[in-house]
């Protein structure tokens, strides 16, 4: 999962977008604050400028204000929020809007910056922020300082709430917009990768039976195109090599048949001599091996056509062929099938070959006097049970590979070539079915062929 291109891209892009989002919100908030502060400063400056325009120096050379009546009313009204104090910087008050102003502006009566906002307590103890500004006022009696203030009013609170609303609005747009970006990127990446998924399905479908298959380059992103071409080149080479190999083994097997046939015929037409029967058995074994090699090579080169087949009838025909063989080895064959026909999808000749190989195998491994039981199941299975030595659990998977022979079994059952079960497995693979082997209760083994039921 950590190697998923899509996941990596979405996570990284998500992180970047979250950062951008946070940055934007921060910047927006900051800008809002700054605009507010600047407006406040401007208001304070105007307040100070207006007050200073009413400044007079009285007879004892002290500064005082002569304020028009309407302005004075505003300053007298405690609830207006406008206050001022004129002081000498040492704590001595020269003039003030009203007595409470001193308390409200107390922090601004010593060294105070150009303009600031302070959280102070109101007279009734409630939190009441105040903006203030200090202006130096030169007088004949020395430097005086005018500290003007504007308490935070309901308008300020509303303004701040509006700011927060604006931020929330911004987020409400930003988050879905970025989500949309993420989804779009994810979807287009996923879409561009879809041909890759199809490609891997195509690669999986290539096997020894169809190595000539090529991958389709259509719709594949151009970045991946060279890989597809390289794989196709490789497939073509492998296919050629495999075809040559298969042709070689088919040709070899084919070429071996006639000399072997001659050898067998010569031996058979000779008068009996010591060891002739052993030689004949050897030649027959070679014949069998060569036949199976040819069969296997041909099987790997063919594509099969499936048609509806009555499994019971098919197995019955094979039984009829195999019974005389069993009789010759003193092995009885028993057949069990349901009353109803069992219709499966099969290539009849190859399916019959698979059944025949397994019955043959069972006969070869059955002790004389024991029976081989063949049973058809309604689920499209053929079971072939023998009372031979059985297949050890550890070998059950391997017996279907080429040239497997159980340890120590060669001596006893010399006729096996090791290809018979591989042929069965290949036939079943081509049928989309399977073959498995299990232990038979009371000794021996049960081979089961499973075909696909027709109409499923």
């Amino acid at each position, binding site marked *: 999962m950590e190697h998923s291109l899509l996941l990596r891209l979405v996570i990284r892009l998500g992180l970047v977008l979250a950062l951008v989002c946070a940055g934007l919100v921060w910047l927006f908030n900051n800008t809002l604050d700054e605009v507010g502060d600047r407006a406040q400063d401007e208001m304070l400056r105007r307040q100070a400028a207006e007050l200073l325009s009413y400044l007079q120096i009285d007879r004892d050379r002290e500064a005082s204000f002569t304020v028009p009546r309407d302005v004075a009313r505003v300053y007298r009204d405690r609830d207006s929020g406008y206050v001022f104090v004129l002081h000498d910087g040492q704590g001595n008050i020269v003039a003030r809007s009203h007595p409470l102003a001193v308390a409200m502006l107390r922090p601004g009566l010593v060294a105070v910056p150009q303009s600031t906002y302070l959280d102070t307590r109101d007279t009734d103890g409630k939190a009441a922020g105040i903006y203030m500004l200090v202006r130096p006022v030169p007088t004949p009696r020395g430097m005086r300082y005018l500290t003007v203030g504007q308490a935070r009013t309901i308008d300020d609170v509303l303004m701040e709430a509006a700011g927060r609303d604006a931020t929330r609005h911004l987020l409400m747009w930003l988050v879905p917009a970025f989500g949309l970006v993420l989804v779009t990127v994810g979807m287009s990446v996923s879409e561009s990768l879809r041909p890759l998924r199809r490609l891997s399905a195509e690669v999986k479908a290539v096997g020894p039976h169809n190595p000539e298959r090529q991958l389709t380059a259509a719709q594949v992103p151009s970045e991946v195109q060279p890989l597809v071409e390289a794989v196709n080149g490789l497939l073509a080479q492998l296919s050629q090599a495999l075809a040559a190999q298969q042709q070689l083994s088919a040709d070899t097997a084919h070429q071996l048949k006639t000399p072997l046939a001659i050898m067998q015929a010569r031996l058979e037409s000779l008068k009996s001599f010591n060891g002739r029967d052993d030689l004949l058995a050897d030649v027959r074994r070679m014949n069998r091996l060569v036949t199976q090699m040819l069969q296997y090579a041909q099987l790997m080169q063919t594509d099969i056509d499936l048609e509806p087949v009555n499994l019971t009838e098919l197995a019955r025909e094979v039984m009829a062929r195999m019974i005389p063989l069993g009789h010759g080895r003193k092995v009885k064959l028993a*057949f069990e099938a349901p009353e109803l026909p069992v219709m499966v999808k099969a290539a009849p000749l190859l399916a019959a070959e698979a059944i025949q190989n397994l019955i043959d195998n069972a006969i070869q491994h059955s002790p004389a006097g024991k029976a081989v039981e063949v049973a058809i199941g309604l689920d499209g299975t053929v079971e072939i049970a023998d009372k031979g030595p059985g297949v050890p659990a550890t070998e059950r998977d391997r017996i279907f590979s080429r040239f497997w022979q159980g340890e120590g079994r060669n001596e006893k059952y010399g006729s096996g070539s090791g290809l018979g079960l591989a042929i069965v497995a290949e036939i079943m693979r081509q049928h989309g079915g399977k073959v498995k082997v299990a232990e038979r209760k009371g000794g021996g083994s049960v081979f089961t062929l499973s075909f696909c039921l027709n109409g499923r």
Partner: protein
Amino acid sequence: MKILVIEDEKALAGLIEQTLQKSGYGVTLAGSVAEAREKLAQPFEAIISDRRLPDGDGLDLVAELRAANNATPVLMLTAMGLPQERVKGLDAGADDYLPKPFSLYELQARLRALLRRSGGPQGVKLASGNVTLDTLHGTVQVDGKTVPMGKRELSLLTELMRRAGQVVSKDVLEHGAPSGGRNALEVALHRLRKNLADHGADIEIATVRGVGYWIVDENAAPAAQ
């Protein structure tokens, strides 16, 4: 009995010739399709032919014969392994198919079966154990003594003896006599077995449940390859 053997592999052709001659057949050899065509100017009882010949496919020759209404039974020899190939041969008109490499014993057994099956108008004498059956006259003898036999029993015995050593399915046996109930076949076979046993026949008609019946013949070659 004259047999035409078409095989380009000289050593193999020679061995087949020797073996068949020992068994009392008259053998004519041909090494190519062209040579076989020449030899076929005269009639043969059976033809044994290879498939891959220097100047063509033995199967084409069979198709030619069949097109010319020549019904001489043909046994194909071939090195092709897969069952499809065998069926192709049978479809082309060959009567039987023996994959190479084969046993000379099996070749002879197949040839016997082939000749047995294609009795033709003159009929054949079938033999299993001490039982003989003349298909032309419809007579059965055990150790040379005639056994009286009903029509149904005779047709069953004929089918079984034609395929002695092979299992004959119920369907094939019932084909000759569509009438009768479910157990008609079993009843007829029971009567046949009893009749043969009463007259001292040494052949055994075995039942394979769910598959069919057969005359157990220890000498017959298995039909399966």
